[in-house]
């Protein structure tokens, strides 16, 4: 589904990513792990077009490109959540998720002016889909609440819902479990697995909780100081010397 070839990215003098290559197969859950500052979030940003790498290429669904606009990534079927929840704070949870349907809503300005009629029909149709997502994520009780007042864990769930509303082929999750307790992590893991199983969505996931990574992912890639130091199944990576030295440490 996605191939990253020899990508390098730097900001001024800081080299965020150096010559990284890997691929993501259709339908798998790929974890990207590594210590802080390793370039994981930058990697996601390159994939969905926020940053343009100085070198290298991304091949998505067969089409190779070195420069991608975020809007093209969206139409191509890539959706994403952010490390510091990037919800639209002025809107309710429902509106946030409805915003995720924007690409699929087509009734033009004239119909929007009138609202009653075709525009309303389209709105209701998408509302149904959004309600399905809301039920799936078990958040119907907060749908009319402005997201700014929601607790962090629920905000992350709404953000996941917004990404799911886009019906993406590739879902990029940036630390979806950050700041959650055990129960919330279990819920979130279940949602991620369900999305992968039922909808067949390919998922790339940045995460620090090793338990989650080992249980959820099919394959793992490890970054350290912008370089790839390991790539393989969770078991392979867990035993890799370089990974243990750089990141995992040894059990005492």
């Amino acid at each position: 589904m996605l191939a990253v070839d020899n990508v390098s990215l730097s900001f001024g003098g800081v080299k965020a990513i150096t010559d990284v290559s890997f691929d993501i197969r259709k339908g798998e859950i790929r974890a990207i792990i590594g210590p802080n500052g390793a370039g994981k979030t930058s990697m996601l940003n390159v994939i969905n077009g926020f940053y343009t790498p100085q070198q290298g290429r991304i091949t998505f669904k067969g089409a190779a490109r070195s420069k991608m606009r975020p809007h093209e990534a969206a139409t191509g079927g890539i959706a994403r959540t952010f490390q510091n929840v990037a919800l639209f704070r002025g809107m309710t949870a429902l509106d946030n998720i409805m915003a995720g349907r924007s690409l699929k809503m087509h009734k033009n300005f004239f119909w929007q002016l009138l609202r009653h009629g075709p525009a309303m029909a389209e709105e209701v149709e998408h509302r149904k889909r959004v309600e399905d997502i809301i039920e799936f994520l078990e958040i119907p009780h907060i749908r009319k609440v402005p997201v700014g007042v929601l607790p962090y864990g629920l905000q992350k769930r709404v953000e996941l819902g917004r990404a799911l509303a886009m019906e993406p082929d590739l879902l990029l999750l940036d630390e979806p479990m950050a700041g959650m307790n055990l129960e919330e992590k279990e819920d979130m893991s279940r949602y991620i697995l369900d999305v992968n199983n039922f909808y067949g969505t390919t998922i790339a996931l940045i995460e620090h909780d090793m338990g989650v990574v080992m249980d959820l992912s099919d394959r793992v890639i490890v970054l350290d100081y912008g370089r790839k130091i390991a790539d393989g199944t969770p078991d392979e990576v867990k035993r890799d010397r370089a990974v243990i030295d750089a990141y995992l440490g040894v059990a005492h």
Partner: protein
Amino acid sequence: MLYREAGQFKTSYQSDQAVFPLLQDRIGIGVILLIAYVAIPLTRNDFLINAMMTPFLIFTLAAIGLNILVGYTGLLSLGTGAFMGVGAYACYKLTTFFPGVNILVWIIASGFVSAAVGVVFGLPAVRIKGFYLAIATLAAQFFLEWAFTHIPWLYNYNVSAAIEVPQRELFGLIVTGPRATEITRYYIVLTILVVMTWFASNLVRGRIGRSWMAVRDMDIAAELMGIRLLPTKLLAFAVSSFYCGVAGAMLVFFWYGSAESTVFSINQSFFVLFMIIIGGLGSLLGCYLGAALIYMLPIALKFVPGQLGLPIEPATVEHLTFIIVGALIVFFLVVEPAGLARLWQIGKQKLRVWPFPY
């Protein structure tokens, strides 16, 4: 007890998404429209209609326009006065060129002219944000203001550089010019405002409104949803300038009767901005409340002390207005940034549980 939603269940998404889901709200709107269309004209109080209601309605329309740009899309603009001016001058040129055409047609057309100008001056918004954009809109404001007095074609080569509104009729009634009655003008302005408020309400609750608010809140994430920034921002400029242009045209044609370019100065831009800050950014109700407060304030200052036996000079009234408005701005931004509209909502919330405290 009165303002309860118990028993009012929604059985479809459509009814859940209505503007006034509660029956009490619907009754309230009906009452307000009744007062506006029937009760006020019946008072036959020319002062009330001409000096208070008509201009209040016109400024509300301008406030809606600016709120779409600033409150919903987050694009701070200081060019409101100029865009209102574009509407007024466009209408003037159109109706002097084609006197036979219905004046309402030209009022709407001048909105489109203003929208086009708005889009041109809104192009920088694609690269600039926040107060940088505000400064860019100042370029629009000052340039257009200069154009209004330095391009003689605009004011038909009139020696005084002012425009005089010619007499026009609608269905046999005289609607513009010195002989039009206050009530006629009031009804026209009211109806245009009601219709355009309905349009604005539809826009902001649907896909377009959501895309505007998404751009306001986090444009990077909005891009990721597939919401394209340039068309969304330009549309906001277009719609906003349309509303301001129509308001400007109505200001000259249905209230002032004539105009010089000083009407559309930077002070006008600030006053409309203050209306939406105090009324509530991102709220249509706020436009009405803010316009009412800012517009009525100097009038109240002129009359109330006089009635109480402590008359104030007109110049002092103006100074006091500035001080009070400025203080209100700071006050609202500190205490309730969401403005009067939020206070209204809180009030309704309390009403919901009345007579219980919570």
